[in-house]
């Protein structure tokens, strides 16, 4: 390696180091905001869906309003546990109820909470006993007992698509 090559190599290396040094010092490479916020694109302009699809969970067997069985639900719960979180160490998940009922009836079982389906639509309500660690609730800053456990939980599935519509805790 001659002197000229070495000098060029050194200069390039210095430039790279200086560049990354600046980035590191400004925080740009570590995920901090850039000089200008991104542009503000418009959101979806179509009609909003008051009955969101939920996310895929139980595979439907048919195209019927009730497209899977209680046994399918039990198998799904056994394989996937409670959507809201795992059971407390040393405990075992128990399925207390699997009901194919109307959305309105399911709402009554969760103390008037919204199910996200028209009143007469059939949903699958599953009641579970833990106790559970409710992991998927995004608790705001500053509240008491952010990691409080749940004695019981429930999940609600769309009886036709098998999609999970939600879950929660019960007293």
């Amino acid at each position, binding site marked *: 390696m001659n*002197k000229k090559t070495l000098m060029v*190599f050194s200069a390039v*290396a210095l430039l790279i180091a200086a560049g990354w040094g600046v980035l590191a010092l400004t925080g740009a490479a570590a995920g901090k905001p850039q000089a200008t916020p991104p542009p*503000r694109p418009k*959101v979806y302009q179509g009609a*909003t869906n008051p009955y969101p699809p939920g996310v895929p969970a139980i595979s439907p067997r048919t195209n019927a309003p009730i497209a899977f069985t209680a046994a399918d639900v039990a198998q799904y719960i056994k394989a996937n546990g409670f959507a809201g979180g795992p059971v407390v160490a040393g405990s075992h998940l128990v399925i207390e109820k699997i009901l194919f009922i109307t959305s309105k009836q399911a709402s009554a079982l969760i103390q008037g909470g919204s199910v996200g389906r028209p009143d007469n639509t059939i949903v699958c309500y599953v009641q579970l006993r833990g106790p559970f660690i409710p992991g998927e609730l995004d608790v705001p*800053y500053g509240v*008491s*007992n952010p990691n409080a456990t749940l004695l019981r939980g429930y999940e609600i599935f769309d009886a036709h698509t098998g999609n999970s519509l939600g*879950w929660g805790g019960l007293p």
Partner: protein
Amino acid sequence: MPKQVQRSVSDTAKTDASASPTSRVALAIALAVSLLAVSFLLYPHAAQAYSCNVCHGVVTWNGNNWGTQSYPEVVALTCTPADCKPGNNYVPHVGNVLWVINTNYSNCYPYDACWVEAGYHTVTNSQGTSTSNVYYWADVRPGTNNFHVHTLGNVQSGDLGNDVWLNIDEYGNTSTWNIDVTSATSGYSGTSTNNSMNPNQIQMGMEMIGTAGESADTGYFTYNIWYETGNNSWHYQENAGNTHNDSPIESNWYQKPASNGSNYGGSFYTGCPC
């Protein structure tokens, strides 16, 4: 020829040897600088140790209200499935969220607070084999001793880099709260019924639980609005509220709300290089 070759090799060696004082120094400098450059290259990607039993990067506004809205940017939230498998003590996840809260309310066991929240967060399956980014809303209502999480749908690739409109409002004193979650590709709505809370706080930002394998691109909450009690008239946020940030989350005002609302409630960023 063999001699000539030998001489040539020898000459070359001699030449290198004769240049060694200068070239060795130059080579040493070049190697040192190269190592420095490599270290800088690796720096932004190096995993940091962190412990988030519950971490927040949020801004809080105190005061009575009938709701709020914001347009957070939809960014990629990562929760490596193996690291975010639901554990014995908590379920790792990360999310960008808007909350309307009734704090210090003993009728809201066990949190001493009731609230309605909406946003998007990671969900990892119980086997620790897959993670999704999901839109949702949830409520903790007075007197029910429980909470409900409503799963709306998966975040679509076309949503990334665009905004999602999050709106939570009680139109009139009806104990019924409307929730809107409208991204670039879809719009969802929900209703928190039988919810008699009287909010006295608004929060927005990032919530994270976990110790490894999570990250979040930097995203901005903009067009930040609150609804006045009594008549639902809306106002842009006109002060910076109180910020709170737990490492490794990075959050703060990029642009604080102007006192006259001229910058649409400011621009608050969240992210986690983690």
